[in-house]
């Protein structure tokens, strides 16, 4: 007999959460794991043995490279994201609020064209190196990206945003009197930063590092396009699969997942080792006084230059989309500009189908994320039950697994009927992609909801119940309206990422649900760089419109999501 109503309610709420996680996170992962144990028709650890003792050590090399790149990506992203967060949150200068929103623009860059844009920008025959070469009359291009450096730069560009967002949020939460106390004790700026501010940001930095590490481990487009020969685990998985070695692909996936999850656990342990809770008792925080006007303008100029650099890839895509195919082949700079690509694009009667598909699937997935995220987060934050940390880890797993692996998991799990798919074969159907998007963005929405819920005082809920409101009424009329802005920020981010999603899409799309990113890839495959770019521009515009509307009319800021 269940002791009381509250426990019963917790169980009712927990039930769907556990079911969904078990069906769409745990079960597919287990299927992959089981697959990895198959060798020559029998169950064994042979595949793992092969992985490690293989003569040529390619797998180990790939594993090492993945970890190495991910580590470096964390470092580089942190070095960009943290200072930017400081500049935009600590100092007031003209245009600050615009720049701080612009700083999240890298997330609207479509993945494939985005990487191509980088090559056109910074590659050996890219615009920037050649402009510099021609301006200064150099013999050689001064620099170029490719291989490792290319991957790193692309990672840094797209992933610093995570540092930027988490650290910005943390900076806001730091009680300024802590820094003042340090000044008062005689510490200079430098000391105060390194000994007080920076350590206090640890939880935020840990969270961002975790994210960036896991995303880099899983990163696909960048190594795929930039380093054909540089071995990383996510590509190995892809190639093993392409080669038809499903068991090996599964083994590699499991190992990659283990590395990511270990890192996740390590980071949690590290963060819990010390106490960073700021024991502030609600003293109004105040901004430090603004210093010299010179500083102010220096900041503004840095900000402007930063934003220009951030926007260069977007401009490059725009540029590419305006250059008709076949007019920028051997030429260093493009010479012909027109809207031919757009004309070709819009002549196609099917042009809007991928757009519609992407939007529709993103909306479905994001709605599911919203509902699931709010319930899960509520249960995790506000309810007590055994096995909470298990649920917590399950929620994080979709981030710890590379998108490719998630795609594979889904294939293994749902290319035959199962109870979780209501007896349907999902692979090859429309629903598989929304499902994949949903799974991939579970952690994002749950995390951002957790953040608001944790700040919400329990007594608000109690007050409502004391006034006679039942739980559901309270939830609907009190909790939801209060947390909605924060929740929607996370949801918006999930939506944006769903619209441009590539790595799982490429494994799972079908005719009926072909999304934008696949359309772009196919244009690329047919060497229609210009049309691919034009399509990319369409995608960027779409996302920017969504961002603008949600910011302008609903006051939701995606940059506040983490």
């Amino acid at each position, binding site marked *: 007999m269940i002791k009381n109503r509250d426990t019963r309610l917790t169980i009712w709420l927990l039930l769907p959460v556990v079911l969904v996680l078990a069906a769409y996170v745990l079960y597919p992962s287990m299927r992959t794991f089981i697959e990895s144990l198959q060798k020559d028709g029998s169950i064994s650890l042979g595949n793992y043995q092969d992985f490690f003792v293989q*003569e040529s050590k390619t797998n180990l090399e790939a594993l090492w490279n993945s970890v190495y790149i991910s580590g470096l990506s964390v470092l580089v992203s942190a070095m960009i994201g943290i200072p930017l967060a400081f500049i935009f949150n600590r100092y007031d200068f003209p245009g600050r609020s615009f720049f701080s929103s612009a700083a999240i623009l890298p997330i609207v860059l479509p993945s494939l064209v985005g990487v191509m844009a980088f090559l056109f920008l910074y590659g050996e025959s890219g615009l920037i190196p050649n402009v510099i070469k021609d301006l200064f009359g150099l013999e050689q291009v001064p620099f170029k990206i490719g291989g*490792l450096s290319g991957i790193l730069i692309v990672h840094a560009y797209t992933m610093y945003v995570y540092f930027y967002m988490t650290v910005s949020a943390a900076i806001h939460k730091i009680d300024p009197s802590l820094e003042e106390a340090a000044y008062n004790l005689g510490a200079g700026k430098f000391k105060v930063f390194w000994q007080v501010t920076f350590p206090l940001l640890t939880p935020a930095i840990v969270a961002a590092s975790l994210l960036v590490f896991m995303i880099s481990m899983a990163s696909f487009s960048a190594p795929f*396009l930039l380093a054909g020969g540089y071995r990383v685990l996510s590509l190995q998985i892809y190639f093993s699969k*392409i080669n038809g070695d499903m068991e090996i692909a599964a083994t590699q996936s499991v190992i990659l997942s283990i590395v990511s999850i270990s890192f996740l656990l390590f980071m949690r342990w590290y963060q819990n080792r010390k106490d960073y809770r700021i024991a502030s008792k609600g003293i109004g925080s105040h901004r430090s006084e603004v210093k010299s006007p010179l500083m102010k303008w220096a900041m503004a100029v840095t900000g402007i230059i930063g934003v220009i650099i951030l926007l260069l890839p977007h401009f490059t895509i725009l540029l590419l989309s305006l250059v008709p195919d076949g007019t920028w082949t051997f030429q260093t700079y493009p010479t012909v500009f027109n809207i031919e690509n757009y004309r070709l694009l819009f002549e196609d009667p099917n042009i809007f189908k991928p757009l519609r598909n992407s939007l529709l699937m993103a909306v479905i997935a994001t709605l599911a994320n919203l509902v699931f995220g709010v319930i899960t987060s509520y249960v995790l934050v506000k309810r007590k039950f055994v096995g909470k940390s298990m649920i917590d880890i399950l929620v994080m797993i979709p981030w710890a697994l590379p998108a490719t692996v998630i795609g594979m998991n889904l294939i293994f799990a749902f290319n035959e009927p199962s109870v979780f798919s209501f007896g349907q074969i999902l692979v*090859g159907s429309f629903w598989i992609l929304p499902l994949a998007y949903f799974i991939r963005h579970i952690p994002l929405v749950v995390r951002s909801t957790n953040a608001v819920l944790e700040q919400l005082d329990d007594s608000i809920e109690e007050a409502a119940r004391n006034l006679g409101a039942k739980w559901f009424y309270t939830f609907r009329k009190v909790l939801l309206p209060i947390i909605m802005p924060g929740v929607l920020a996370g949801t918006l981010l999930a939506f944006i990422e769903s619209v441009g999603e590539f790595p799982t899409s490429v494994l799972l799309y079908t005719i009926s649900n072909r999304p934008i990113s696949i359309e772009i890839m196919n244009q690329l495959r047919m060497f229609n760089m210009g049309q691919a770019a034009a399509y990319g521009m369409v995608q960027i515009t779409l996302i920017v419109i969504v961002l603008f509307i949600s910011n302008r009319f609903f006051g939701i800021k995606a940059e506040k999501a983490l």
Partner: protein
Amino acid sequence: NAKNEEAGVSEGKKGEMEDKIVVYSPHGKDILAKYEKQFEAKYGVDVEWLDMGSQEILDRVRSEKNNPQADVWWGAPSTNFNQASAEGLLAAYKPTYSDHLDEGFHDPEWYWTGTSQTPEVIMYNSKELSKEEVPQDWNELLDPKWKDEIIIRYPLASGTMRTIFSAMIYRTYKDTKDPKDGYEWLKKLDQNTKEYSANPELMYNKIAKGEGSLSVWAMPDVVMLKENKKYPFEFVIPESGTPVLTEGIAIVEGAKHPKAAEAFYEFVNTKEAAKNLAEEFYRIPTRSDVPDLPEWITSTEIKAMDIDWNVFQEKGDEWMKHWDENIKSGDKEIKE
């Protein structure tokens, strides 16, 4: 009489045909859209297609085995089809034009038939190199003077490149039954190679802009780039002979629209279609009865390498794996 034959087929089956057909093909939007329109006009059957790389198609057909989405798989090297039929992914179908296909252009059990041939060639940037300088045969590529001039598409994901590399090994393997010499050859090529590009587009770009000046690639693509996209590319057909890939078409096992699939199968390889493909899309037909082929086909003299494709299929993965794990210098891209 071929025309009548075909008309007969179409008329005879029209009534029972399903109203939809799904085609997987790497041929790209231009070709697919064109044939979609023609086929729809003729039969009133809705054509849906997905274009993706041939290797990816194989992969996908495999993962959809329990719930096939595709009816027709149009376009892929015969090795891919052999692999697929070995895994039971294809359905056998003997087309009406079977008489006009030479021996090597179809599966003995008719799991696939050839639609076009693709000779592999040495491709170069005609702005950087003159016709005289360019290596005339495979072995000349190993000359140290081409160091860092060669840019190659990363072979693992590319049927074309797999074929070329396998052929290089096969040249000695067929006699010695030992891939060692071939591996040696590839190692030398690797030393001259500047970069392995992730996708063809990148390779074209780099060669066009002169980051490198040489590559090996499929002839129809080179011609197409040169003619349609105005790239400064030319090609040389290696003197000692070159592997000629057969691209084919097949019906997927368990297809949901088998009748329409058969109609489409026939439709894209009629004489007219083959001629059109040759003229517009630079594909060399497999049918021996296509008249009035364009000049670039008739005038080019291709010396086909004699290849046992079964060996390729059997050994190919192993060779490529060896190349990937032991020959390719891992630090190639990190060097810069």
